[in-house]
């Protein structure tokens, strides 16, 4: 009897279907991930003229990306590892990378949804318009930025095994990124912090998102921010992949 190995593409699409269903059944957390950046954008209505539409949109998308990478991805991976779901998949005839690839594709969809939701809210409630090219570039910048936070999420589940500890750590890191990033960028925490924030994962992602929405304002500094963003994504992901273990035991 011949041994039947299904095609990798077929296996990946089967896994993806299951992961999308799982994500859909957790739609309360999906809605929260979409709502937080939209609510922040609405709360900034009074200052949008001062800070600029692109800046406001970029900041809110960055907050959404942070939630996806830190709260969504890392916690679902930590839970499934703890429950032995990955081990059950690993004894099946499929390449291990398919398991994570399927999870990442779901997060990619979330990145596109958050970006769309913020653009929609910006246009509908705050009448923020950006050039057509700006929308396209911003989606690419959001994917690059999302990769940084997914990398951080991967690093956290690589370094920490216990799902409760992963949960509390990601909440802490999320809170720190948002508070220090937002307040620091406005200069509320002083000039030193402002400088640090500019080159932090929050600052570089916000910077490339903002510049991508107004391509005419793209400068050499933005290119540097893009390179730093890519470096962050690579470094965090490499650490996360190297340290990651499929089992908690």
């Amino acid at each position: 009897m011949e041994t039947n190995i299904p095609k990798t593409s077929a296996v990946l699409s089967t896994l993806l279907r299951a992961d999308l269903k799982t994500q859909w059944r957790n739609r309360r957390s999906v809605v929260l991930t979409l709502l937080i950046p939209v609510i922040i954008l609405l709360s900034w209505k009074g200052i949008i003229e001062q800070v600029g539409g692109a800046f406001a949109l970029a900041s809110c998308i960055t907050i959404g990306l942070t939630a996806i990478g830190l709260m969504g991805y890392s916690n679902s991976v930590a839970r499934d590892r703890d429950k032995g779901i990955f081990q059950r998949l690993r004894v099946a005839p499929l390449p291990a990378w398919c398991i994570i690839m399927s999870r990442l594709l779901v997060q990619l969809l979330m990145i596109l949804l958050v970006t769309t939701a913020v653009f929609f809210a910006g246009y509908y409630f705050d009448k923020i318009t950006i050039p057509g090219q700006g929308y396209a570039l911003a989606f690419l910048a959001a994917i690059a930025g999302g990769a940084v936070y997914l990398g951080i999420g991967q690093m956290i589940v690589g370094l920490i095994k216990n799902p409760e500890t992963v949960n509390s750590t990601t909440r802490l890191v999320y809170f720190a990124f948002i508070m220090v990033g937002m307040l620091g960028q406005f200069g509320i925490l002083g000039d030193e912090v402002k400088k640090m924030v500019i080159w932090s994962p929050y600052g570089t992602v916000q910077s490339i998102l903002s510049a991508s929405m107004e391509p005419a304002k793209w400068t050499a500094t933005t290119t540097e921010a893009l390179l730093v963003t890519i470096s962050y994504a690579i470094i965090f992901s490499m650490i996360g992949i190297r340290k990651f273990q499929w089992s908690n035991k």
Partner: protein
Amino acid sequence: MSDFILDVDNLNIYYGNFQAVKNVSFHVKPGEIFGLLGPNGAGKTSTLSAVEGLLKPQSGNIVVAGYNIKDKPLYAKATMGVQLQSTNFQPELTVTEIIQLFAGIYGVELTREKLETILRDNNLQESRDKKFGQLSGGQQQRVSLSLCVIHNPKLLLLDEPTTGLDPQSRRQLWERMEAMREKGHGILLTTHSMEEAEAVCDRIAIIDHGKIIAINEPQVLIDSHRNDPEVIAASRKGKITLEDVFIGLTGRAVRV
């Protein structure tokens, strides 16, 4: 090609400096139920994990249905059905969705009739639309067992398969294992239940401190050790059982 459905040869597994499995060799023939018994921490799950491809042994060879797990891991895995000790599935997915997921992973065409058969054979018809997280322990175990055989594997690896099952479900599982044996499938199971090992296993290996210390048919093991002083001391009712032999060989101390 070997006549064995599973051939484990000179397996050695280390965790850091600790050697969990020491030169373990055994084989499982087609149409045989082979039991791997041992106290907690004896090396059963490590051995099984190596066969399943979940951990890489430092040395030794594992061949499943002619495929070396090192060289052809996907082919070897495609010929096995595995039930892990603590298997779990996404709690948000329903029983039907989990079956569809694993049918897709193993490349099995899941017709409506096949799905119905799987649900009926495992007493899961009523739970088909229930989410995995809503099932009882026994129902979850039955889902796990149904997925083991979804692709009609040549080798079945069952790690403590009857844990959490009620006596009826346990009996049903034994009957299904025996039916699979009749069809020529090989089964490797680990269990702490000596009653189960005695009832269903054709051959048994007792493993302790990473080494196989006895390997034979259950009755032969009982007969050959019935006069050992440790076995007689372990006997509680005068009649020597497999459990007495097991305790006699591995000691009375409780392992953690």
